[in-house]
């Protein structure tokens, strides 16, 4: 089973006033079969962690390591990371004008598998994945994320998760901006993915709401660029009751 290991990860971004450190030593291990939730207030560096693992060029890794089954992820190009089995559902999925969802999905699937999917089963798979996320089949003919509502963009991310079926999925606030019905649909999709048994899930969220539908094995509280505390699902219950205050105070010391 796959294991994603993050060790002492330090990440900075370039700003007008020079580099600014955002991640300040993150340690995290996600093994296949496990679901981890990262919870943290806005600006704590959650997206930075997700993007850094995926290889977004904006983020500079200043020290630390990320490995997938022992392979150095940080040494891989963005597309190599995806082909190695990492998937990032983005907080703000990007519009790609003029490129249809069908073309996009087929191109991605071909790249991930190293061969084109069989035409007949593929069309069926796409339609099933869309239907599972309660998206109309006509979305296949629309341009990628163009004119999609916030909720449709998030569902489309999970459609991709199911079709590309990576080893480890990182979901960056997939729950934000969803109404309760959409949240259930999206959670069901994530659970279907996780229930294959050997898949790792890193669920990044600001709210505890999604944890009613997706049960994490581990909860990490993320404050100020590092993991402030970790535990089991009970930690989420504490956050639900008391919020982030205790952790913010501790970090301020």
């Amino acid at each position, binding site marked *: 089973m796959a294991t994603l290991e993050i060790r002492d990860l330090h990440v900075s971004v370039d700003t007008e006033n020079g580099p600014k450190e955002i991640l300040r030593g993150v340690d995290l291990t996600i093994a296949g079969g496990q679901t981890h939730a990262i919870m943290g207030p806005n600006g704590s560096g959650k997206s930075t962690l997700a993007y850094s693992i995926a290889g977004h060029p904006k983020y500079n890794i200043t020290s630390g390591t990320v490995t997938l089954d022992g392979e150095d992820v940080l040494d891989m190009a963005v597309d190599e990371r995806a082909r190695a089995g990492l998937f990032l559902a983005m907080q703000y999925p*990007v519009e790609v004008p*003029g490129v249809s969802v069908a073309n996009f999905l087929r*191109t991605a699937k071909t790249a991930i598998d190293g061969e084109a999917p069989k035409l007949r089963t593929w069309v069926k798979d796409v339609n099933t994945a869309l239907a599972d996320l309660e998206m109309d089949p006509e979305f296949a003919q629309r341009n990628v994320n163009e004119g999609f509502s916030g909720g449709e963009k998030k569902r489309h991310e999970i459609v991709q998760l199911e079709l590309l079926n990576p080893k480890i999925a990182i979901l960056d606030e997939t729950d934000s901006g969803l109404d309760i019905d959409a949240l259930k649909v999206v959670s069901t999709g994530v659970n279907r993915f996780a229930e294959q048994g050997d898949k790792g899930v890193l669920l990044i969220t600001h709210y505890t709401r999604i944890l009613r539908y997706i049960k994490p094995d581990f909860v990490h509280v993320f404050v100020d660029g590092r993991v402030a505390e970790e535990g089991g699902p009970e930690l989420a219950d504490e956050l639900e009751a008391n919020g982030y205050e205790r952790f913010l105070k501790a970090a301020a010391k």
Partner: protein
Amino acid sequence: MTASETLVATGNRAHSHGPGSPVPLQARSERPTSYDVADFPVPNGREEEWRFTPVKALKALFADEPGTEIPKVDASGPDGVVIETVAADSLKVGRPQDRTAAVAWTHAAEAVAVRIPVEAELTEPVHVNVAGLGARGFSHLIVDAGRHSRAIVIIDHTGAGELGSNVEIVVGDGADLRVVSIQQGDHESIHLAQHDALVGRDAKLHHVVVTLGGKVVRVNTNVRYAGPGGDADLVGVYFAESGQHHEHRLFVDHEATHCKSNVLYKGALAGDNARSVWIGDVLIRAAAEGTDTFELNRNLVLTDGARADSVPNLEIETGEIEGAGHASATGRFDDEQLFYLQARGIPEDAARRLVVSGFFNDIIGKIGVPEVAEHLHEVIEEKLARTAELSTSAKAVIGQ
């Protein structure tokens, strides 16, 4: 795309441009036309209509002298079409607007005329190939679509040397004519063209310009309407690489009532000194009630060192119009799109190709001739492959 877009004056009322929009030095309607070369001084590059153009490279086409060659013109079409040679000034729908058009008019002794008879519906496109042979030459084409005819005419400009050309287009009442002009001369070739179209009552013109080759290409397209209910769709695609200058000028002159015009030009630029210029002038005269017009130009700058100029200009002299608007946007290649595609496993070069073909997708769909659309696809792929080499070698240099 990281582009800013301005949408001006949509709705049935006159508008004035806000501060910052270019004020024409001279109203478009007042710009002179003449068949006499002497009426146009040799441009120095400071004139409004030449200020974006590398005039130094154009000396040969400014000289009031006969050509040193006659470009090879081959025309063929399906049954029904009439192809003949006529005197250059037999139609005079075209009116030269600048020195090079007047020079080309004067020194192209004859014109090749493609006539689509009244009510003929051609099943296959008419093909016209104008090939420069390496020297300095002039060509003159007439496309004359009879009343209620339907036809597609493809004009393919190829070869080497310096070419000055005039194309006159008449769309008869109720006719539907598609003219596709492809500019794909050799990398050192120069081609300056003027197209003048007269759109008849209730007629439809699809005018498609595809500019891929050449060192300097400038296509100046003018549309007038002979009666009410005319409709002109003006589509252009260009892709300028290092050392190429692709310039497209449009002037749609609305004088008849209830006419439409829709302009959509899209271009990509890659490489050092890749240059594009788009000037879109639309004039709605006081008499042109019920006009409906929109123009849009988009540019995608793929590498550093390339530059796109885009100047839309709308002059409205009547308030009684259906709608009028323009938009122009120039954006750099969007790294977020690239990241998103790569994050789904798609390698960088394939991701770039996907983004660029996405950018051109809608306009390729409007070309309306599968053989041209396919050819365009292929050439864009070739150009992108060269662009990828550029960026790889640039990275290699940085990485040293």
